[in-house]
């Protein structure tokens, strides 16, 4: 087999893999109609697991907390997927579940104890100084602190817009607000971070 044949063979394999890949909608139908739900669910989990985890991790400082919340999110998805009516994209609905779970966690955490910023500072300092010089580490700490001081909703919107590059319609559906509200949240978040950085 020459190189051309090898390349053709490889591309046909890739193509067949792509064609056989089911959409979220197809997997949900399979989940809802089949007795063997786990296969379809596992596909959805593999496909969206990382994005959900990263978004939660952007909101909570402790990775272990992010892991717990992500697991709760997926258990909730398993329990509620039978009733999912496909009125929105699966990813939007999934992020909405993640948003609610994260807010619940943060509210419980607030009640239990006020945030210990000095401890957080230490974590950021260790993480940042390991990678770069002291000046960039300081800037990173300051910006990270500014992000952490934002109200939860503004922080969530900022992360979805800047890091996930979601459009405002999707952000509005996830956070249960209007498109205008989502835009306002994003711009308020930037303004507030700027104020915090100037103040400090």
């Amino acid at each position, binding site marked *: 087999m020459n190189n051309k044949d090898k390349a053709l063979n490889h591309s046909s394999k890739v193509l067949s893999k792509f064609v056989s890949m089911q959409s979220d909608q197809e997997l949900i139908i399979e989940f809802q109609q089949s007795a063997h739900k786990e296969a379809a669910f596992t596909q959805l989990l593999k496909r969206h697991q990382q994005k959900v985890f*990263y978004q939660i991790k952007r909101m909570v400082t402790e990775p272990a907390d992010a892991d717990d919340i992500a697991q709760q999110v997926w258990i909730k998805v398993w329990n509620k997927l039978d009733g999912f009516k496909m009125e929105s994209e699966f990813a939007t609905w999934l992020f909405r579940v993640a948003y609610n779970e994260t807010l619940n966690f943060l509210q419980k955490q607030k009640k239990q104890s006020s945030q210990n910023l000095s401890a957080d500072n230490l974590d950021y300092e260790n993480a940042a100084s390991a990678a770069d010089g002291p000046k*960039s580490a300081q800037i990173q700490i300051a910006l990270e602190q500014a992000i952490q001081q934002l109200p939860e909703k503004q922080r969530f919107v900022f992360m979805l817009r800047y890091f996930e590059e979601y459009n405002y319609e999707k952000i509005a559906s996830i956070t249960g607000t209007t498109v205008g509200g989502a835009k306002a949240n994003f711009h308020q978040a930037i303004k507030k971070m700027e104020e915090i950085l100037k103040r400090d």
Partner: protein
Amino acid sequence: MKAQQNDNTLLDDKALVENLFNKQTLSQIEDAHKQVPNDFFVQQEQAILSAIRNESPKAKIISIGTWKKIAIAASFIAIAASAYIFIPSNYTTQEVANNVTIQEIPIAEIESYVNDYEAIAEIDWQSEINKEGSNLESISTYLKEDSNKTQE
């Protein structure tokens, strides 16, 4: 990127953020968020699937529509109403009348009974006066005739 194609303001928004805060710093923060141990997601997947397998099946909640809710409420009201109508009370009005003599009834109760009926009589007169087409003269004539008849 698909999101960028459909969203003209995304680049503007990103530029706004990057002008205020260093782009490199932002990407360092994002890298820190994405730092996970090797096989983290494989382990997380296994933990989620095992939690789901170990979860006891929950009772299925059946949602009912508005009409079904109304029908259920109506049937409860019907049962309560029929119980009030059909279940005989132990002590009927007739039994009270047979067992109690006039001497046993307190005077206060008799007076209140008479007062109640007087009130009804007054209401009747008032309604006669208010009737359309009636006037005070015709009523007084009627009263005079009535008293004459009684004297005869």
